[in-house]
């Protein structure tokens, strides 16, 4: 696990704190998802999965908790990026402003956009997309 005191970045600490503050206002049936999001942020070793869980939490809770999800979105867009193969890097800022429901949705949309702008890009680009920490 990459969460020792030297490698645990402050943005992840801030994000974990925001997730923890979501619990009292969230229905109990969503607590497992929030726990998974918290664990993903703490581990910091699988950003594809963590972003997918963030999107699932957002879909269920953002309407009632806009401010914490705005803050989480800002932290994620400042700290993560989407690598789209062959050196393409797609900023997450605009992508997360849209209401994608899962990482698979994002990958399909980005793959389509990259393909439209780069005719040499492989049609199966979605499989090459991955979220990495900056």
């Amino acid at each position: 696990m990459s969460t020792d005191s030297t490698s645990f970045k402050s943005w992840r600490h801030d994000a974990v704190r925001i997730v923890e503050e979501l619990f009292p206002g969230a229905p109990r049936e969503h607590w497992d998802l929030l726990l998974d999001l918290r664990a993903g942020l703490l581990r910091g070793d699988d950003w594809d999965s963590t972003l997918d869980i963030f999107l699932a939490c957002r879909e269920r809770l953002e309407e009632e908790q806009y401010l914490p999800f705005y803050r989480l979105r800002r932290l994620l867009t400042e700290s993560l990026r989407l690598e789209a193969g062959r050196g393409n890097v797609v900023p997450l800022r605009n992508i997360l402003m849209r209401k994608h429901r899962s990482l698979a949705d994002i990958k399909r949309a980005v793959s389509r956009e990259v393909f439209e702008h780069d005719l040499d890009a492989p049609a199966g680009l979605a499989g090459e997309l991955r979220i990495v920490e900056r």
Partner: protein
Amino acid sequence: MSTQTATKQKTNAVVEGLQTLLADTYALMAQTHLAHWNVEGPNFFQLHTAFQAQYEELFAAVDEIAERLRALDVLAPGGLKTLAKGSRITELAIEATPAKDFVAHLVDSHEILLGNALTLREASEEVNDLETQDLVIGRIQVHQKTLWMLKSFLKNL
């Protein structure tokens, strides 16, 4: 440390606090003005009007804070670059932005300013600078009230 040196350091904390309050207020005014111009959507009229009232209040506050610095015989900092350096308030990107994001960004900006204002209130109390303390308490009240309004807008009841 002599009593005189300790008092000077505490007075410096008040001056630095006022300079930060000035920079934060100016930065917040600019961000609120930007929100006033660029907000879009079904709540346009409501937010456009509210943001105008807020940046006009902040404009008057900038003058009051700068003149308090002059009353302490300190030159007031000015100019966009100088003031931007003095504040931790971030700038929104110039792009289509959901109305709720403008409000959320202003909440975060008011909270940064409020944190610094609370520190300044303590510093001015320590040196018995009641005039600065009075000014800062007034500013704290304004920002707490604005935060209440902005956060209320984001609630979905």
